[in-house]
């Protein structure tokens, strides 16, 4: 392969790596609403239901 072919491959791999990293970080940065799932005193567990 010519030298410019290798250069092209390296550039494409670099761009894909940056894009993948950005997508992963965007997903990790995505927010949510986290709730305390333990049973509160107002809602005691009911056995037998």
């Amino acid at each position, binding site marked *: 392969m010519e030298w410019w072919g290798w250069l092209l491959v390296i550039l494409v791999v670099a761009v894909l790596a940056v894009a993948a990293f950005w997508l992963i970080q965007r997903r990790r940065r995505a927010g949510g609403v986290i*709730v*305390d*799932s*333990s049973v*509160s005193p*107002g809602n005691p567990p009911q056995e037998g239901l």
Partner: protein
Amino acid sequence: MSRLMRTSEVIGRPVVTLNGQDIAQIKDVVYSAGGGAVGGFTLAGRGLFSGPLKQGLSWSAVMALGPDAVMIRDEDVVSSVTEILDASVRPGGSGGNVLGSEVLTDTGILLGTVVDVILEVSERRTCDVVGYEVSASEALGTHSAKVFLPLPDTLSASGEHVMVPAAAKDFVAHDLAGFGAAVKAFRKNLEGQG
């Protein structure tokens, strides 16, 4: 006087110190099922490639939850994210994300899926979860429409299901403007039953 807002409006909002430093952005809203009080926020970095931070912000450290930014005194008020989660999520609680959870009544009827959570921010500097925006099931008669479902003072939720009293479906609101009145009427109704 209090105002209602969606958590989706808060998530991604920049955290700015009084010196004007933009130190982070809001990632997760953390609240307690025992009363619905918002305990704090987890944070993410502001850069294009930055991810979640190990720091969090407790609600007591927030000076103002403005329409464009969350204001804090300075960087020193930011604490460890484990402290934020420990404060609101008690040991034994798995602390799941309620977005996407199914809403069930205590009589076992599926009302829909949570698409957003509604916060009430009061002038007394309290911030509480008062309702869910739900993609409605057929049980609400408006299949796939988005409606607002009021919550009682004491909530019951996990990462998979959130529970509401069966009476909640009688107090559904179709817009955020009328939702405050629906929450008050719903809670008054529950007090009357109790």
